[in-house]
């Protein structure tokens, strides 16, 4: 099996996606909230996308983790370094499933993911793409210190705002150990 590393934060475990994540993943991608990230999707399309997320790890050596709540083991989202076909450059992506917004989970997981991208993958920069109107996602980007720098139009996802994260050298406590 592919070896996908695990990351831990105070409240969250970031681990490789598995078959058991499918129901939560598909429920999110069946909902209107997923319109900001390419949904809504049928169950079949969601299955293909979950499989694609794993294939992304194999083909690129990185990808998004399933984020699990440490206390309950529930999958609450997909977060991590991501560069599916047609992306302008690698991003830190986050999808938070329904009912888990507003608790700082996306910020907590994305910080760990960004540190991993900088410290382990050696990225010198990172963006995050946010669809217009996805104010909660934009707020996460801003909380992470990212700044808007223009738009990008994707074949399937349409227009997205590009947020540029602070570079590794601009982060005072950017080490992964700060979030582990």
């Amino acid at each position: 099996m592919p070896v996908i590393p695990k990351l831990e934060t105070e409240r969250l475990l970031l681990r490789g996606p598995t078959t058991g994540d499918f129901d939560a993943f598909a429920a999110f991608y069946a909902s209107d909230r997923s319109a900001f990230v390419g949904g809504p999707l049928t169950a079949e399309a969601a299955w293909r996308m979950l499989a694609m997320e794993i294939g992304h790890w194999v083909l690129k050596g990185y990808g998004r983790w399933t984020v699990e709540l440490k206390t309950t083991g529930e999958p609450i989202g997909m977060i991590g370094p991501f560069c599916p076909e047609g992306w302008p450059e690698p991003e830190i992506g986050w999808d938070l499933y329904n009912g888990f917004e507003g608790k700082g989970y996306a910020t907590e997981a994305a910080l760990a993911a960004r540190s991993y991208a900088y410290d382990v993958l050696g990225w010198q920069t990172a963006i995050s793409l946010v669809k217009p109107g996805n104010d909660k996602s934009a707020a996460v980007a801003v909380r992470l210190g990212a700044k808007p720098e223009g738009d990008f139009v994707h074949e399937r996802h349409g227009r997205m705002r590009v947020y540029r994260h602070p570079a590794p050298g601009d982060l005072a406590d950017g080490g992964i150990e700060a979030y582990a």
Partner: protein
Amino acid sequence: MTACDLPIPVLETERLRLRAPKLSDLPRLTAFYATERSRAVGGPRTAMESYNSLASRIGHWVLRGYGLWHIQRHGDDAFLGWAGILDAPGWQEPELAWTVMDEAEGQGLAFEAARAARDHSARHLGLDGVISYIAPSNIRSRKLAERLGAQYESEGSVAGHPCHVYRHPKTKAR
């Protein structure tokens, strides 16, 4: 992480090697999905969708423990088509699927690959007497199913497309 870490066995037949899908297959996969010929198997697809298809084929193996093998001739890396087992929401049960590209057609390669995939799945995966979904217009595929000993079972649909369901014989019956 490399394809070597994947749970994808290599199968050998007289003329063919069935192995994991890999990134260098992408140009041929993209070219295939740009053709009308791909309509029977979910196409046409854009270059982006072809990439996602390649990635999801790999992920399918991880999620299910089985999936599609990509086919090449011995000693020639060129990707000629695929055979293997698919199962996703909307599938009534795991399905033996196969496709060969134009240049590999008419040589019995799809038969050889599909039989090897079917035998492996029956022996090692507990998937015996599987179905195949055949698009009604795909006469070549129907003939191949019949040559493999599969029999028409019912009308069905998969991924929103009506199709015929063929049932393969169980290993003992072959």
